[in-house]
């Protein structure tokens, strides 16, 4: 068993927090309380959780437009995140980033990147810092199957190998890059197999199984921390919601989403596995469900009540010094 | 009385503190006059020459080439009278440099780098710190205070403050990055500095040629010391003067020219009269004042003449000019109408029996009229050869006196300059002169049609005391007859 009871409960809580957070912001978005665009991570929780449990606060991650889950898993404050997404004062980015640029810089979450493929080069830089400064930190770039095809991703993977930096390229293949199937857009069909061509090893994992993802990520982190250079992971999963909130997902097969929400729900799978292995009881998990629900509700209400940023904030923090 | 005088390092520009001796123009033992340039000195901004303020002999050089000396230090000794080595030694030993100019307190520790933010690498282009002409205003509260070189201010603000004698310590700074701005200085000084109005455009493109007066410091403009002094006394900024002296330096003459230009008048130089000019002036004044001139003109069609000339030059190998034809025609006309070939004097009219024709030739500095004698007896080729020879020798100045005196009739041809018509002045003691203009293609009426012909206008100026109008007209008809029937000139 890759996770002991304590670890499992922590993992479960994280996954549940992400799930409830995403559904809550979806609700609020539907009510018109959230401006702009929203890209939800619901369904992919086991991947963010499995990786971030293997990371410390001073390890680095970069994420994509679908970044709430990574931010929460890395230790981002849920209340601050809620405020940020709702464009309120006290948001984690002072209301200046929003959902697509959610960040928890102090916890090593270097930001969600709205440019597809924007993250991988950045993480090479973070890993380079770690190597140059002699820390044993690692950097993880969460990228989708869409981002896996970007030139910047290829360049970053090559550079990571050339410079032998501790970077993990974690590809979450949820089957869709916007409205196009990964099976169509990824020419090699298999993202993990590209890694060898760049000169780095790769792991493939079932992204719906927290035990499996935790184990795979643990291997990858160990590989990097021991100075063996970069490594890639391909985690296969699905996303429950559309590319963006409001996406009718007409490109998905009839009944597909409903089916996957039953068959590929990492929380359902985790619960079943853990109980079968007699790791936890249902009651313990239900308790966590209740706590998380309330926690999210409190955060949402606080965010709804908070004021927006003052207009005087418009020109602050463009530069580090007087311009 | 002092016979020994010190030549010291002069102060050029308020910021100059020292200079390097680059070249001595004189040597020990040379005689020196007041104002002579003795030595070249190079500062961080200019190279200029120090002059002598006294006349005498250079008896000792103290500063060597390559040596850098502070302003006021001794470079050489000039003796205005008898002296000896011991006296010179004593003079040098006793020499004390004068206090180096206006003692503007230097901020402590200026030697250390780094240079200030506005430091300019290409120092040749930088202006010294203070304007040459300080503000006329008497010192007031705004001008008091410690040296303000370290006060952060924009370049323009500092410039204006200096020009108006305002110490930057007395100005509240609201400019960019906490520096004193132009607006701050203007506010403190109750002034407003704006560009001049449209009319004072520079560069010669405006209708009113009012020269722009520069106000920028001119200490870096290379000029002779005398020129600089003169410019200062005339309140001329050397930025407004074009330097034409050695190495582009401004000379005294350049400053004088600029001074006159500043008044808006045309610049002039004066040249003394040559004897030729004097003669021309005297003769032609007398002619104009004493002779009752009148003029008669006629247009002559010269197409046939030009054909004839082309044949004679091209096929027969002659070198005959149109003017040669005119000379021949006049010779023939003077035979047909001899009343034009006369001279008037108080008692008698003198009638000549041959045509000696004076031909006006432009030479350097004036004109001269060599004479072709007895034109009637000469054929065109001979006239052409003589006229060419005389003209050439007139240009080089080898004509004999007898070759340009005498003459009974004159011809002046300005056709080569394309003039339509002109009236010549009679050369005393002659009584007439023919002015020949350019032959130009023109429409003329023949029968009832308009055709194109080459038309040359000739004008006869005649002395009415000797020649009456009808005679003059007949003469012109005769000239026209010859020129329009060139075959008649071949005999």
């Amino acid at each position, binding site marked *: 068993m890759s996770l002991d009871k304590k670890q499992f409960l922590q993992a479960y809580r994280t996954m549940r927090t992400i799930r409830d957070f995403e559904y809550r912001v979806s609700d609020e978005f539907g009510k018109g309380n959230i401006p702009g665009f929203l890209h939800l991570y619901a369904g992919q929780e086991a991947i963010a959780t499995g990786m971030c449990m293997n990371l410390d606060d001073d390890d*680095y991650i970069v994420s994509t437009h679908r970044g709430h889950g990574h931010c929460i898993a890395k230790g981002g404050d849920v209340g601050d995140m809620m405020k*940020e997404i709702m464009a309120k004062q006290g*948001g*984690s980015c002072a209301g*200046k*980033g929003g959902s697509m640029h959610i960040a928890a*810089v102090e916890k090593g979450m*270097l*930001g969600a*990147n709205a*440019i597809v493929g*924007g993250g*991988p*080069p*950045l*993480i090479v*830089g973070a890993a*380079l*810092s770690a*190597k*140059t*400064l002699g820390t044993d930190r690692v950097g993880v770039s969460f990228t989708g199957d869409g981002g896996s095809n970007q030139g*910047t991703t290829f*360049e*970053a993977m*090559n*550079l990571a190998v050339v410079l032998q930096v501790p970077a993990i390229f974690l590809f979450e293949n949820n089957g869709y890059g916007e409205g196009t199937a990964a099976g169509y857009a990824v020419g090699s069909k298999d993202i993990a197999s590209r890694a060898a061509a760049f000169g780095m090893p790769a792991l493939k994992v079932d992204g719906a199984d927290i035990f499996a993802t935790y184990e795979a990520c643990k291997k990858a982190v160990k590989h990097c921390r021991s100075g063996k250079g970069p490594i890639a992971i391909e985690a296969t999963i699905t996303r429950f919601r559309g590319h963006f909130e409001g996406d009718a997902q007409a490109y998905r097969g009839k009944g597909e989403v409903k089916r996957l929400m039953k068959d590929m729900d990492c929380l359902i799978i985790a619960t079943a596995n853990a109980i079968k292995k007699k790791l936890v009881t249902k009651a313990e998990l239900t308790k966590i469900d209740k706590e998380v629900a309330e926690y999210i509700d409190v955060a949402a209400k606080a965010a709804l009540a908070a004021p927006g940023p003052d207009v005087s904030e418009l020109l602050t*923090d*463009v*530069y*580090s*010094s007087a*311009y | 009385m002092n016979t020994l005088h010190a030549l010291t390092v002069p102060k050029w520009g308020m910021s100059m503190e020292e200079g390097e001796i680059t070249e001595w123009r004189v040597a020990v033992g040379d005689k020196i006059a007041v104002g002579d340039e003795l030595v070249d000195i190079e500062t961080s901004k200019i190279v200029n020459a120090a002059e002598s303020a006294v006349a005498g002999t250079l008896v000792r050089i103290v500063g060597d080439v390559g040596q850098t000396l502070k302003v006021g230090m001794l470079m050489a000794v000039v003796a205005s009278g008898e002296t000896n080595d011991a006296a010179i030694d004593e003079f040098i030993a006793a020499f004390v440099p004068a206090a180096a100019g206006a003692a503007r307190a230097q901020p402590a520790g200026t030697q250390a780098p*780094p*240079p200030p933010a506005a430091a*300019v*690498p*290409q120092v040749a*282009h930088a*202006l010294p710190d203070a304007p040459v002409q300080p503000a006329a205003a008497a010192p007031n509260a705004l001008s008091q205070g410690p040296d303000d070189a370290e006060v952060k201010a*924009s*370049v*323009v*603000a500092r410039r204006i403050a200096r020009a108006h004698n305002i110490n930057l310590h007395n100005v509240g700074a609201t*400019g*960019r990055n906490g520096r004193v701005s*132009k607006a701050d200085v203007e506010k403190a000084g109750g002034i407003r500095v*704006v*560009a001049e109005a*449209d009319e004072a*455009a520079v*560069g010669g*493109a*405006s209708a009113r040629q009012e*020269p*722009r007066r*520069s*106000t*920028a410091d001119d200490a870096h*403009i290379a000029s002779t010391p005398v020129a600089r002094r003169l410019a200062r006394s005339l309140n001329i900024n050397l930025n407004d003067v074009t330097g034409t002296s050695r190495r582009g330096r401004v000379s005294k003459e350049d400053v004088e020219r600029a001074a006159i230009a500043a008044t808006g008048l045309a610049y002039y130089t004066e040249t003394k009269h040559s004897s030729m000019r004097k003669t021309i002036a005297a003769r032609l004044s007398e002619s104009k004042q004493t002779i009752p001139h009148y003029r008669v003109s006629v247009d002559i069609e010269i197409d046939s003449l030009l054909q004839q000339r082309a044949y004679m030059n091209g096929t027969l190998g002659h070198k005959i000019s149109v003017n040669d034809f005119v000379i021949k025609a006049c010779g023939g006309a003077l035979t047909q109408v001899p009343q034009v070939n006369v001279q008037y004097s108080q008692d008698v009219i003198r009638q000549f029996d041959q045509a000696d024709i004076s031909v006006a030739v432009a030479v350097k500095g004036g004109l001269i009229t060599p004479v072709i004698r007895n034109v009637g007896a000469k054929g065109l080729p001979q006239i052409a050869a003589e006229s060419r020879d005389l003209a050439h020798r007139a240009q080089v100045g080898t004509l004999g006196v007898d070759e340009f005196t005498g003459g009974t009739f004159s011809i002046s041809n300005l056709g080569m300059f394309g003039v339509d018509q002109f009236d010549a002045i009679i050369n005393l003691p002659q009584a007439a002169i023919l002015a020949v203009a350019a032959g130009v293609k023109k429409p003329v009426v023949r029968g009832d049609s308009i055709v194109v012909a080459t038309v040359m206008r000739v004008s006869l100026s005649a002395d009415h005391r000797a020649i009456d109008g009808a005679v003059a007209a007949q003469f012109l008809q005769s000239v026209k007859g010859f020129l329009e029937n060139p075959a008649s000139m071949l005999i």
Partner: protein
Amino acid sequence: MPIKTYRQAINEAMAQEMRRDSTVIVIGEDVAGGAGCDGDRDAYGGVMGVTKGLFPEFGESRVIDTPITESAIMGAAAGAAQTGLRPIAELMFMDFLGVCFDQIYNQAAKFRYMFGGKAQCPMVVRTMAGAGLRGGAQHSQNLTQMVTMVPGLKVVCPTNAYDAKGLLITAIRDNDCVIFVEDKFLYETSCEVPDEMYTIPFGEANFLREGTDVTIVGISNCVNKALAVADRLAAEGISCDVIDPRTTSPLDEEAIIESVETTGRLVIVDEMTPRCGIAADISSIIAEKAFGALRAPIRKVTAAHSPIPFAPALEDAWMPQESDIEEAVRFVLGYKR
């Protein structure tokens, strides 16, 4: 004071900062040269030799040769800057900006602001710009305007060795992403450069010449051409303020406005295309903020609206010439309504 070239001054700024601060690294293509080869390491020291000598002194952990992958280089530099290093990334030719523009204008420029002031990106992008060396259309551009317009970036364009050293040291110490535009025509020019370290603040223009008749602003090497013209015109009694902004972001607008208030006449020279270049930008600022002071239209002297030709006569005609600058100065001086 020692005389150093523009190239040497830039090299010295980097070497001295790298000695002073161990988090400063250099990264780019052939910044040393010879990686993985059988011959010399530090074979190039940069394609123009500007980083020569850094690899032997600081080693491969601080002078990093990369594959030819501008996006990855700039992205890595941005990521490294966010996480404790101070990278000096080299974009070999400014023409290559397009290949990595996202990393610069969308990532590095925006981290601080997008993340509410909690992130910073203290990196320098050193890049080489300028025509005149017959490099052709894709190796000769000056794209200063494309980075000047981006909030969050600072843009520096030194015109002489002294300024280059001081401005680069300031750039390396600055906590924002600074684009350091080196005019490739100037590498061999030289002047006095102190041995010790010094900084020149951003946003402070330098007056290369002072005068009262015309204000001439020049960007990069164009200001040196403007100075040559002004020197010649001085002999005719025309005196000019010749202004080198040194940084286009931040821009010392005030210095230009003040000068125009005293001269009334402005000529701006840059080596960019006529539309949306720095000359166009400064024109609009002055027209807006100093309109009343103007006695003549503002004249821009820029390159031509075409890709840069290869043939020498054509390339020279493409670039702004001293004769163009002189003509513009005379125009504004002679202008009558």
